[in-house]
C-alpha cells in the first residue's frame, strides 16, 4: 500500500504515489534552478506543468485515479531535461554565475525540506498585507491565526496599559523582515516550493483569463481554479498538520493534564457567560458599573475579546496535548472526542444549573434581540452623524 499525494497542476488536481510526487518535485525544482535568470522562467515552468498535467490526464481513466511512481518516471523521461536554450546565452551570460550560485542555494533548501517534511518556523515581520511594519502579520502567521485578532490584542494592550505600543515598537526594530522566498517560507513553515507553486498558479490563472473570449468559458475556468486552489491549500494544511503530530513533544502527563485544561477552559467559558448575563441583566459586570458613555453592546464586545485573549494560552496548551497524544494515529480522534465530551458536559451542566436557579438568565436571553437592535441603531446614527 502506498501513500497518495494530491497535487495541483495547471488548475486540476492529480493524485500521485508518494515516490512519483518526489520525482516530480525534484524535476520541477531542477527545472526552476536551470531557468534561473531567464526572464520567462515562470511562464516556462507553468507550460511544463500544463504539459505534465496533460500527460497525466491521458494515463487516467474512470477506474484509475492515481498516477503510479513508474508512470511519473516515464512521463518525466518523455518530457526530457530542461535544456537552456542556445539563443539565450548571449543575453544572460553576465548573470550566469549569479544564477548558478542561487541555484545551488535553492537545492540545499530543497534537501532540507525533504528531510524534515517542512521548513522550521521563525518569527519574521511580513510586509505583504501589513498595516504598519508587519509585526502583527508576522505573529499571526507564526501561530497560524487571523492577523486581525493579533492587531486587536495589540490595540487593547495599548488602550489599557499603553504597553502594546511599546511592545510593537520594540518588535518592529528587533524582529527581522522576511525578504527572500526562503525567509517567507520559514515565517509560515510551508516549504518554499509550495508557495512558489501557488504564486505561479495564480499568475497562470490571470494569464489564462485574458485568453478566454466569452464570459461562460471564463466563469467555468474561474470556478474550476478556485476549487483546485482550495484542494491545494487543504493539502498543505494537512502536511503541516501531520508534520506537527509527528514532531510534537510527547509526555505521559499530557493525558492527565488534558481533562484539567478542558475543565479550566470550561470554567472560564462559564465565568464569561455569567459576566455577559450579568451585563445584560443588570447593566454592570458583577456589580462593576460601566462608565456612562459606554453602551452595553460595546462592553459585551470587549468581554468577548478579553475572553478570547485569556483563553488563548489554555487553547494552545490543549492543542499541544492533542499533538503529543495524537502521535499514535488511532488515538487522535479518541482524544479529541473525549476532550470535547468533558468540555461540553461541564458547560452544559453548569448552564442547566444556572438556568434552574437564576430566573435572570431567562430575562437576559430574552433581552438579546432588543440589544442587537440597539447596537444596529447606534451604529446607524454614528454612521449618519459622520
Amino acid at each position, binding site marked *: 500500500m502506498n501513500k497518495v499525494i494530491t497535487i495541483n497542476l495547471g*488548475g*486540476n488536481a492529480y493524485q500521485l504515489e508518494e515516490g512519483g510526487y518526489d520525482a516530480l518535485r525534484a524535476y520541477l525544482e531542477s527545472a526552476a534552478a536551470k531557468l534561473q535568470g531567464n526572464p*520567462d522562467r515562470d511562464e516556462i515552468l507553468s507550460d511544463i506543468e500544463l504539459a505534465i498535467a496533460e500527460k497525466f490526464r491521458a494515463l487516467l481513466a474512470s477506474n484509475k485515479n492515481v498516477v503510479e511512481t513508474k508512470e511519473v518516471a516515464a512521463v518525466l523521461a*518523455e518530457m*526530457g531535461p530542461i535544456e537552456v536554450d542556445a*539563443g539565450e546565452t548571449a543575453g544572460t551570460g553576465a548573470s550566469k554565475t549569479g544564477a548558478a550560485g542561487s541555484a545551488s542555494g535553492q537545492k540545499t533548501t530543497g534537501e532540507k525540506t525533504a528531510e524534515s517534511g517542512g521548513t522550521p518556523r521563525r518569527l519574521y515581520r511580513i510586509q505583504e498585507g501589513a498595516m504598519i511594519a508587519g509585526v502583527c502579520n508576522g505573529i499571526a502567521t507564526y501561530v497560524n491565526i487571523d492577523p486581525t485578532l493579533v492587531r486587536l490584542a495589540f490595540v487593547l494592550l495599548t488602550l489599557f496599559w499603553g504597553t502594546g505600543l511599546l511592545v510593537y515598537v520594540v518588535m518592529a526594530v528587533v524582529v527581522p523582515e522576511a525578504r527572500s522566498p526562503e525567509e517567507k517560507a520559514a515565517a509560515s513553515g510551508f516549504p518554499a516550493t509550495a508557495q512558489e507553486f501557488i504564486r505561479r498558479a495564480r499568475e497562470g490563472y490571470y*494569464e489564462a483569463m485574458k*485568453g478566454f473570449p466569452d464570459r461562460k468559458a471564463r466563469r467555468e475556468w474561474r470556478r474550476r481554479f478556485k476549487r483546485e486552489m482550495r484542494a491545494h491549500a487543504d493539502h498543505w494544511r494537512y502536511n503541516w498538520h501531520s508534520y506537527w503530530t509527528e514532531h510534537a513533544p510527547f509526555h505521559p502527563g499530557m493525558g492527565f493534564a488534558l481533562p484539567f485544561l478542558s475543565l479550566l477552559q470550561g470554567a472560564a467559558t462559564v465565568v464569561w457567560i455569567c459576566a455577559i448575563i450579568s451585563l445584560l441583566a443588570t447593566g454592570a459586570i458583577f456589580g462593576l458599573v460601566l462608565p456612562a458613555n459606554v453602551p452595553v453592546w460595546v462592553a459585551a464586545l470587549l468581554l468577548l475579546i478579553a475572553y478570547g485573549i485569556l483563553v488563548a494560552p489554555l487553547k494552545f496548551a490543549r492543542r499541544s496535548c492533542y499533538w503529543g497524544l495524537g502521535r499514535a494515529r488511532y488515538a487522535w480522534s479518541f482524544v479529541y472526542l473525549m476532550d470535547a465530551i468533558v468540555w461540553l458536559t461541564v458547560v452544559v451542566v453548569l448552564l442547566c444549573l444556572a438556568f434552574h436557579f437564576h430566573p435572570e438568565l431567562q430575562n437576559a436571553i430574552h433581552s438579546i434581540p432588543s440589544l442587537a437592535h440597539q447596537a444596529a441603531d447606534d451604529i446607524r446614527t454614528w454612521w449618519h452623524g459622520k
Partner: protein
Amino acid sequence: MSVNEKFSAIRKGLLEFLVLQIIAAEKVYVADILRQLSATEFATQEGTLYPLLSRMRREGLLDYEWKESEAGPPRKYYELTAKGREQLRETLEYWGQINGTVKKLGQK
C-alpha cells in the same frame, strides 16, 4: 565521433528554423510540433521546446492564444507574427544559399 554526434550542435541551431516552418503551416500546440518532429532527425522533447518557444515569443517571432481542450487543461496554440514570417523567409533564402554552397564547393 559519429556523424550524428558531430551534427548535434547544428541540429540544435536549426531547430528554431524548423519550428518556424511548422508553425507557419497552421496553428499548432506543443504536442503537434513534437509529433511532426518525432519522425525526423530533429526529434525533441518538451524540456527543450518550451524554453525555445518562450524565447521566440519574447523576440516577437510568434504569439499564442489559449484554447480550451475537451479534456484537461487549456492549451496554448502558437502562430507566427509578421516578424516571424519575415524571419522564416530570410532563413529559407539563407538556407538555400548554404545548400547551394555545400553542393557547389569542391566540384570542378
